[in-house]
């Protein structure tokens, strides 16, 4: 009896932080001349500001955040465990649902990891197509991030301009992959299909419109005094802190670190293209905004280069252990038949071992760690999701700022629920 009472008392005494008890107001500094109390507000998991499902329990003094507790995991679907139940190619639809504003990058990230396990390299044409599709996805990712943040700051018009631009790009993606969001376009050792014949022409048309819309948005926001006041010196993080938190992507580059996986560890022939990696200097939201704005233009340039120099050739490996053969082989020869059967039933079987591979996602370094036991299914899979790591630094970014500053900071991190919570 006494023990259980003691235990209860211990539970009561334990300081849960702001997240423990949300309805009471914690009194602070009772000896102050002017006795004030702080207020705890729970923002999310379902709140207009949290476009992923995340909960921010903020302790406010007036409108100033003096403590905050970030809770993620509301969108956990067990991605990593699900990967262990299906073969390597069947993981593709799950990766679509990681960062669902740039699903193609996730596809190719997974493919590249498994190809590294196999120790193979896909044909040049496949690499170029992967670059093209990745960069289009990166633009859609940045457009979504910037548009949503602008909308949350009250600039609804910019958001709709950017959504229109994104629509043109999604039409391109739909043209090639047949889907807008759940694309499942990548395959281990290749691609689902080739580009359509008039893809280059359509892309140039779309980019014209996208450039115009981005320029309009740029005019509306970049030198807008109200917008700059909201973004500058908000959500600041130092270069050392950013590296210590292992941030990546635009959030890291805004602090002045020129780390981009595409430059640092080139994959998929990124070394063939000329592009600059924009870096900021202050590490605040405005720098993040500008970095993303410049990256949109750089990505457009990469796609244009890739389309001009697009090599001919096969889009997949010709290794029957990894890639399903041509249907003529399957129906016409006994070897082809057996290979097809093996691939469909057991999946591609990489050698025993483990590997990590990273690609530059829309929001940062997207890495996959896969352990293979020699069977057609991953023994263990892990995703290094940039959004999850960025949310770790989020508390530090918003402390001491006002309640309104949560919005642009959260928007510029571009936390994507599917990726963060997996």
């Amino acid at each position, binding site marked *: 009896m006494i023990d259980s009472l003691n235990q209860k008392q211990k539970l009561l005494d334990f300081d849960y932080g702001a997240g423990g008890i949300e309805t009471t107001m914690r009194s602070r500094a009772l000896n102050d001349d002017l006795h004030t109390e702080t207020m705890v*507000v729970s923002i999310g998991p379902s709140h207009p500001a949290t476009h992923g499902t995340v909960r921010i329990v903020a302790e406010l003094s007036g*409108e100033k955040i003096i403590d905050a507790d970030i809770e993620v995991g509301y969108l956990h679907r067990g991605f990593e465990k699900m990967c262990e139940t299906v073969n390597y190619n069947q993981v593709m639809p799950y990766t679509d649902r990681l960062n669902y504003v740039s699903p193609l990058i996730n596809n190719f990230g997974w493919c590249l990891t498994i190809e590294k396990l196999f120790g193979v390299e896909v044909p040049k044409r496949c690499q170029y197509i992967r670059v093209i599709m990745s960069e289009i996805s990166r633009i859609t990712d940045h457009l979504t991030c910037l548009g949503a943040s602008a909308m949350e*700051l*009250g600039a609804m018009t910019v958001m*709709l301009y950017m959504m229109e631009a994104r629509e043109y790009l999604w039409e391109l993606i739909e043209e090639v992959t047949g889907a807008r969001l759940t694309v499942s376009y990548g395959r281990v050792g290749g691609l689902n299909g080739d580009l359509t014949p008039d893809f280059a022409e359509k892309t140039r048309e779309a980019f014209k419109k996208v450039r115009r819309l981005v320029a309009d948005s740029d005019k509306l926001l970049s030198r807008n005094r109200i917008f700059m006041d*909201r973004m500058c010196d908000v959500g600041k993080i130092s270069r050392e802190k950013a590296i210590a938190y292992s941030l990546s992507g635009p959030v890291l580059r805004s602090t002045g670190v020129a780390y981009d996986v595409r430059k640092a560890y080139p994959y998929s022939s990124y070394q063939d293209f000329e592009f600059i990696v924009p870096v900021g200097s202050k590490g605040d939201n405005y720098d993040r905004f500008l970095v993303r704005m410049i990256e949109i233009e750089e990505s457009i340039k990469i796609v244009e280069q890739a389309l001009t120099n697009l090599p001919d050739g096969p889009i997949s490996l010709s290794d029957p252990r990894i890639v399903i053969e041509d249907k003529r082989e399957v129906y016409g020869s006994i070897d082809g038949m057996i290979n097809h059967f093996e691939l469909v039933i057991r999946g591609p079987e990489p050698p025993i071992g483990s590997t990590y591979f990273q690609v530059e996602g829309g929001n940062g370094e997207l890495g996959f760690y896969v352990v293979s036991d020699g069977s057609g299914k991953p023994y263990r899979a892990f995703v290094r999701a940039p959004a999850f790591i960025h949310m770790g630094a989020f508390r530090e970014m918003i402390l001491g700022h006002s*309640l*309104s500053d*949560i919005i642009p900071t959260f928007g510029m991190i571009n936390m994507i629920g599917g990726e963060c919570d997996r």
Partner: protein
Amino acid sequence: MIPFLIELLKIAFLLQLIFAFASLCTWFERKASALIQNRVGANRAGVYLKSDNFFLKPFIPVLKFLGILGVVNTLFCDAVKAIFKEDFVPSHTSRFLHTLAPFASVVPIFMAFAVIPFAPDFVIGTHLIRPQVAQISVGILFVFAMTALAVYGVMLAGWSSDNKFSLLGALRASAQMISYEIAMGTIFVTMILSYATLDLYKMVELQIDGVWGVVNQPLSFLLLFIVGMAETKRGPFDLPESESELVAGYFTEYSGMKFLLFWLGEFAEIALFSMILTILFLGGWHLPGVSFATNSLLGTIVGHFVLVLKTAFLCLVQITLRWTLPRFRYDQLMRVGWNVVLPISLVNLFLTAVVKVFF
């Protein structure tokens, strides 16, 4: 008996004017924003109407046309939707205060319209009629008093909702409205000095005889425009209800007709400020180069429409700004109010006084 009837008619006319402006602003909000954002906007309501009724049939094409323009949506659908929605009142709050709040924010705005002259005088028979409900000599002060009262509705709404977001929104709104009222008062004093009268009708007459107020006092016009937008809690100043931070601010817990009343109050306030700007600075019903016989009915009708058009234009400008600019942060808004708008308006007042005394 007849004077009493005339007063009643004036009140009825003014009320329909307010509602017409509220609807017009809603319509602008829908269609102007759609134009700005490359969207189509509301165009469905009323388009698919079918009827073989002899009396209804002639109206169907008209309704279809209005439906494509989005007018049917604004005039009928909003009200019908709001009436049939659940009237939600949070538990453990005072139902009385919760219900009082929307009225407390709408009624003062409607009352402020009482002193607004909406057309020049005219004569019918032996009656000289002034299209102004309350002919009090301190008209502009009455407007000031009534807009100051509107803050109580907001405070009540935030307090009686038992919601932290509502409370924060109400705190922001009351701080914002009170801060900007000081600047507003200063600008009003400047205009009183400039015209040497408190009567809104006389101010318009002075402008018709001389030049428009915007020529004499361009800075005051600009300042009052900004202050008016802050006072109506719209445009870049809509942070009491900023939907991304505070869900919907002080009317988070309101639904149905009560919610609509808040919106009505907001749009009526836009119309009120636009009308005051028109009367103080844009010559009221004055159409340059056109003059009518004194107290003629034609002059009144044309004058009324001129006033309405000028007001509608100002409403449209406010709505365009609201869809162009992002919103301020709370402390930035306060800084703009106290460090920029108020000092400039004080200097403006001082300069106006100096000019009045010495020149």
